């Protein structure tokens, strides 16, 4: 089983170069920032003392002012590099993670995909986004370490006690920040991830059902359902902001305390050194603060990892038997039917008797019990679903289409189909004329789930798509449903011609009599089949 952590590790490894660069830049920027602050302090106090002592010419003021400018440039460049490279690594790693998750989703057995559309979208979206904190964290740790180390060194130069107090206060800030984050932000951050999932799930559900909801006057109910999830997300974010606010109190307080105590503890040192200690202590705490602020994302990261693991945690298919094209054997209504290569079988039965389920089992879209069907004598349960599916060109009952153009839908059947083959398939599905008259022909956008086509047109598009797939068997589920008699007759006649020329076998499910006339054999489902399957 793959876990999200191992995927993150692998994707991080791919981004090693920008990540190292980001870390280097952040260390450089943090060091420069501390140096800048300390030097400014030392320069100004040193200059003041020199002025008071009347030794103005002995004080080399040119060097520090040049170094200040240099450090300013280094700090700016470092910070820019850190942010750019860090985000480059993160964004491309996230893109890789998204692809891997999608692959995981489609590779897992279909029946395990119980995730609602909205939830799936939230996991691949927000939950993957939350993971970025993991990537941003590393350079921040290095930067914080550099800031604290150089700050402490500078304060310790003024007085050992000042260095000690800086270390102590930085430690308290980090510990305190982690406590606050665990207490307040962790739960709220996790809740933000969950609430986003719930919100997407709710909206996807009511939005898909919008025509029915509006027809029955349920807009208020529907928007109320989404509103509840929306309010929950708002509340979670508000709590999260309290955690961030609490961190601000801690960090501002600690920074002031560190500066003042460094100054007081370095009382014995020259005034220039003491001022430098104060400024360096403040810088050290600011460096620690940048790290502490990343803590508030921890809850979200943990929850996101948990939610992503849940979609990866699946049994993957290890079956490896490759099917050979040969006789198809299938049990329908307790009778075993053997269909030779190129043969044709009609499956009939009352509504709800399990005809569609049978086809979906043949397609490996549902788990099939042993002994249900064989290909060339091999039980389909022993064949990997991916391999099994190459044997069949399927036109499902629900006439599902992808949101896109006519061409995109047809190319799903065969990505290498020629223009000629496409038009031939459309002709055989009695849809050629219709598509020719569409504004952009094959490249016409047909709307979500083919909303711009009629039910019958969608069905014929699915039929044409199945025609394009070069598989030994055509599997058609109610291919003429919702079609008028004339169109049905046309399609059946053309299908007959088509099968003669391709030599494909045919398994057809229909409750209408005409499609069955193409077949040599008719198998009847009985209701008990379904009970047995359950």
């Amino acid at each position, binding site marked *: 089983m793959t876990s999200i952590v191992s995927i993150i590790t692998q994707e991080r490894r791919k981004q090693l170069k920008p990540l190292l660069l980001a870390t280097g830049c952040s260390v450089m920027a943090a060091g420069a920032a501390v140096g800048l602050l300390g030097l400014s302090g030392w320069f100004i106090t040193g200059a003041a003392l020199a002025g008071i002592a009347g030794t103005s010419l002995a004080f080399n003021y040119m060097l520090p002012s040049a170094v200040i400018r240099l450090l300013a440039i280094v700090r700016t460049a470092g910070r820019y590099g850190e942010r750019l490279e860090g985000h480059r690594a993160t964004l491309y790693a996230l893109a890789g993670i998204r692809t891997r998750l999608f692959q995981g989703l489609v590779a897992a057995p279909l029946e395990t995909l119980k995730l609602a*559309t*909205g939830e799936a979208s939230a996991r691949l979206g927000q939950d993957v986004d939350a993971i970025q904190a993991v990537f941003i964290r590393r350079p921040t740790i290095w930067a914080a370490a550099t800031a604290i180390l150089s700050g402490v060194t500078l304060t310790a130069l003024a007085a050992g006690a000042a260095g000690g107090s800086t270390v102590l206060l930085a430690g308290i800030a980090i510990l305190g920040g982690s406590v606050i984050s665990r207490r307040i932000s962790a739960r709220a951050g996790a809740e933000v991830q969950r609430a986003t999932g719930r919100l997407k799930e709710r909206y996807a559900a009511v939005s*898909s059902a919008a025509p029915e909801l509006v027809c*029955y006057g349920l807009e208020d109910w529907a*928007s109320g359902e989404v509103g509840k999830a929306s309010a929950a997300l708002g509340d979670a974010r508000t709590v999260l902001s309290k955690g961030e*606010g609490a961190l601000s109190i801690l960090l501002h307080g600690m920074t002031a*305390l560190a500066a003042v105590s460094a100054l007081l503890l370095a009382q014995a040192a020259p005034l220039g050194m*003491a001022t430098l200690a104060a400024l360096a202590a403040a810088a050290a705490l600011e460096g620690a603060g940048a790290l502490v602020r990343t803590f508030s994302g921890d809850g979200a990261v943990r929850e996101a990892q948990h939610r992503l693991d849940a979609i990866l945690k699946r049994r993957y298919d290890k079956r490896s038997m490759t099917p050979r094209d040969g006789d198809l054997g299938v049990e329908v209504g307790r009778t075993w039917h053997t269909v030779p290569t190129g043969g044709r079988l009609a499956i009939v039965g009352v509504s709800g008797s399990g005809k569609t389920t049978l086809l979906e089992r043949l397609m490996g879209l549902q788990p099939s019990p042993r002994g249900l069907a064989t290909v060339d004598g091999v039980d389909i349960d022993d064949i990997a679903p991916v391999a099994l599916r190459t044997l069949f060109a399927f036109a499902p009952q629900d006439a599902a289409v992808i949101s896109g153009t006519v061409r995109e839908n047809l190319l799903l059947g065969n990505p290498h189909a020629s223009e000629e083959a496409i038009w031939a398939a459309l002709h055989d599905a009695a849809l050629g004329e219709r598509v020719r008259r569409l504004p952009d022909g094959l490249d016409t956008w047909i709307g979500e789930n083919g909303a711009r086509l009629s039910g019958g047109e969608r069905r014929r598009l699915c039929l044409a798509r199945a025609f394009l797939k070069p598989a030994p068997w055509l599997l058609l589920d109610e291919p003429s449903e919702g*079609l008028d008699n004339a169109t049905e007759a046309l399609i059946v006649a053309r299908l007959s011609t088509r099968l003669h020329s391709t030599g494909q076998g045919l398994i057809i499910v229909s409750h209408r009599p005409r499609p069955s006339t193409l077949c040599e054999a008719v198998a009847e489902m009985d209701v008990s089949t379904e009970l047995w399957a359950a």
Partner: protein
Amino acid sequence: MPAGATAITHAPPGPWLAAAGKAAAGVSRVAAAFTALDSVGAIGFAAGLAMVVAALPSGLAAALPGAALALASGLARGLFAFSATTAGAHAAAKVKVQTRDRIVRASLLTPPGDQRPLGERLALVVDGVESLDGWFARFAPARSAAASAPIFVMAAMAVASPVSAGIVLCTFIPFVTVMVLAGGAAAEVSRRQFDALNRLSGLFVDRLRVLPLVLAFGAEARSAAVVHEASHSVAHRTLDVLKIAFVSSAALDFFAALSVALVAVYCGFNLLHLLPFPVPERLDLGRAVFVLALAPEAYTPLRRLAAVYHDRQAAETAAESLANAQRASAPRAPTWLAHPPDLRFDRVTVRYDGEERAALMDFDLTIAQGEVVALVGPSGAGKSTILNLLLGLARATDGAIFLDGELFDPTRPPRSAWAGQAPIVIPGTLAENIAFARQDASAREIARALSLSGLGSLGGAIERIIDERGGGLSGGERRRLGLARAILSDAPLLLLDEPTANLDAASEAALLPVLREMVHGRTALIATHSQAVAGLAHRIIRLES
């Protein structure tokens, strides 16, 4: 861009955002005030530090007041930040919840043919609205603080050293120029990022929706390749946005650092009496430390603003789409019919954008109160389109419909009892899915609708759980679910779209008496291929393709 996307005009998002923010105006002002107060805390801290430095040579006790002031100011800054963050979050939450509600309502009323894909809708309703967060929680307070806070800081500096304040004031010019330039460059880049995000979300959701199809055609690798391409395009576009943000904040950082150095050098020279030009002030160490500690704080409000610049850009880009989505349909009051209506279609034509062939052409029909009309004809002749017109799911591009003698308003379709071709399943029990049609229905009425539709006899226990993919319902059962809803509904207008499709002859025969009872006492339109079903009607209308 697919033809389904209606031309989007880019209205300036500012007024829309301002209108959206009205709901939280009070708490937004609080957030802005506390953000600005941060600078007051900074002045206190710098003053405290300077007092300690000045007093330290005279001993620890003399330094204590300064130390206390610095500590108190540090703590006050923390409290101000806390208040600003939480107030900003409250304002954002309020605006987001309200905006989302409006967008959801508008999207429910958009005809399916004009809908963007579900994934894009999800991205707009959830992520698009969420990106307003940055505007209201951070950008708006930072913007209003940026207008006042630097002035406090410079005023405080001027008290100690007018020349230093003057230096800082002069360096504001390149600062503001950089911000204006960055803001102008970001809009287009941000729009491209928004489009890439939309596309990715649309792809994900669509491919998962038709996952059985992807599997059946062995298109896993091809789909993954498309997703890979789309997610990398998002990464690429996002990086483009961030580059602008990073360059501008780097430029600001640099100018800030340089002007702080300039102040430092000036203070140093002033203390050394080495300035090559005369100045009207003599600094002491305390004042110099105060000015130096305060100089970076003059830029803090602007740097804070620069840091949230891409929040602003993201919100403005989202606002354009949100404003469009909201405009797409006005809120409407439901039309409840008290009695079976009469209907008249007068030369009604329905044509989708850019399509040469009309889905329905010059259609005329008058239906009397309580009349039952069957619509028959070949696939694609416009039977479902006629029903969709009455449901508000399709819009007449020409001609007019009259309902009870009044011009039919497609934005206010009457409540009707409807059994469509693909009844929607909401995850939940079968009973909940039926109760949809009438929320006040009793358990007995639901059970009756269940059994009349034939769902009861198919082992459809009322508490059976169905998932989003219609899990466990066969095609025929799904049709019956639509029928059960129409049976339960008491609306006097009945619209049936091929009610017996997917049913075998025996099941259809069993359903006929139920249909007969359903049409009784209602005005009904039935689209069908079945002669038996058409036989239930008073009149049969034949449509030609």
